[in-house]
């Protein structure tokens, strides 16, 4: 520490090479210690047990050691309740995330446009995010008659709740992206004769790419959390249109059917991990 005090910033200063190396080592060590808690925690609670789960899904676990091949997966893929749950979850994701991004972008553009009411809207927009689901579901149940919630209309209700809850934060992210676009770009485009729709298409949308990416990630993560609303609306056995993956898992946790749970976990993780890894590798190649 004495040394660094005397010599100023440790990695920019011209110190003797040997000394510099040891200081670099010290920085690596400090960084390693800082990242250790999250890394260990992630390994212990998520990554390593996931390896156990893969074993379970092939029949290797819980005392049994007979390799079952893909038979557990085969049975799972023939189970009507799993297919229903997976289908509903995918449908929810495919409808919910694009709608959420579109709504968030539209609201951000409106807020950025400086219309009257901007202040009020900006102040209240994050409220749905923090309101507890239990309280909101109470309001929904009083407003919407029970027979509707027990029919296939439960799906749009669930979708609307998801959009209502998450739109605020997505709007904030798009607003942040909009504020980072230099206004000279628009002035230059206007001078060249580009009208508003063209400016939106050629300047705003491409430069909002980071906001889109981050919003999509949050949208996907949160769409899986819609089980909370579904559970509070419909209990453990809701209408089949909102029977989600989590309902299926809960039933199997009650029966202690670990092999089946493990196979369902792996099957759900597979597309997510593959897509994420591909995107990360693609990004790496580009930079």
């Amino acid at each position, binding site marked *: 520490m004495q040394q660094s005090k005397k010599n100023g910033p440790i990695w920019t200063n011209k110190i003797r090479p040997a000394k510099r190396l040891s200081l670099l080592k010290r920085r690596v060590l400090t*960084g390693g210690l800082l990242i250790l*808690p999250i890394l260990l925690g992630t390994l212990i609670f998520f990554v390593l047990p996931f390896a156990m789960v893969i074993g379970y899904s092939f029949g290797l676990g819980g005392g049994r050691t007979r390799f079952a091949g893909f038979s557990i997966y085969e049975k799972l893929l023939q189970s009507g309740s799993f297919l229903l749950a997976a289908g509903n979850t995918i449908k929810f994701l495919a409808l919910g995330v694009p709608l959420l991004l579109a709504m968030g972008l539209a609201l951000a553009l409106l807020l950025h446009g400086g219309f009257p009411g901007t202040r009020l809207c900006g102040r209240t*927009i994050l409220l749905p995010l923090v309101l*507890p*689901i*239990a309280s909101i579901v109470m*309001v929904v149940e009083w407003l919407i008659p029970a027979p509707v919630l027990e029919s296939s209309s439960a799906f749009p209700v669930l979708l609307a709740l998801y959009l209502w809850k998450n739109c605020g934060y997505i709007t904030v992210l798009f*607003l*942040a992206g909009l*504020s980072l676009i230099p206004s000279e770009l628009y002035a230059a485009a206007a001078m060249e004769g580009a009208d508003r729709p063209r400016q939106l298409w050629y300047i705003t949308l491409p430069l909002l790419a980071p906001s889109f990416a981050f919003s999509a990630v949050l949208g996907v993560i949160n769409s899986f959390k819609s089980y909370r609303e579904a559970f509070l609306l419909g209990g453990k056995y809701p209408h089949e249109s909102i029977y989600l993956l989590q309902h299926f898992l809960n039933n199997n946790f009650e029966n202690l059917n670990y092999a089946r749970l493990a196979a369902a976990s792996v099957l759900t993780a597979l597309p997510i991990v593959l897509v994420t890894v591909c995107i990360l590798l693609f990004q790496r190649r580009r930079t």
Partner: protein
Amino acid sequence: MKKTIRKCAGSLALLSAAAAALGPVFYLLWGCIARPQGFFLTFLRTPEYLYKFWNSLGICAAITAGQLVVSCMGGLALAKYPLPCRRFLLGILVVVLLLPLQVTLTPSYLILDRMGLLDTVWALILPAVFSPFGTIIMWMTFRGIPDELMDSAQMDGAGPMKLLWEIMVPAGRTGAASVLLLTFVDAWNMAEQPMVFLRDVSKYPLSVFLASLDRNNFPLSFHSGLLSMLPAVLLLLNFREELMEGGGLMLEK
């Protein structure tokens, strides 16, 4: 003329968004004012409600505090320190971040079972503390803070801990506030974890307990619904500006 119509339409859309956000709160408020007897039912006749309220608040505070500490440390390491295989570590954290609870519940259950922590509050707290969410947010936040700030503090002889808590976290306080608020709200709403990790129904936190209340008991429902809103709404009032600004710092780079 065309401009006026545009302005009106824009304002109308903004105001309806505000109304949609505020509506449920006013509905609950109005319901409470109309049924004042619910206040007594909630606070005097249902002791388990208040017990659950404070219990859940404790659990959420522990999760939020733990997640905040772990995230600030990890985020700084990823953003500003020369880590070996940094991209690989970041990749692991991003993949785990994107795995929904529906994937991680079974692995977490198995490991918590081995550790003998099932049916205790630790089963709710520990996996939530080590979620990579906050680390990614803080990494994005710290990345947007210029290196010079850290260099000059180091020049003044600040140690790593002082550097983190007294220089970098205050500089990235918009990101830290976002982590705090989003983690707290998520923990306050938790439903999947207690239903899987806890067998003893009496240990369920408020979020799941509220579902078991009799919804036809309007006075009790309105007041308990409003009270359960209070902690998160107070946090939002406190940190709203940081949350609104947080996005800017995160997306800058």
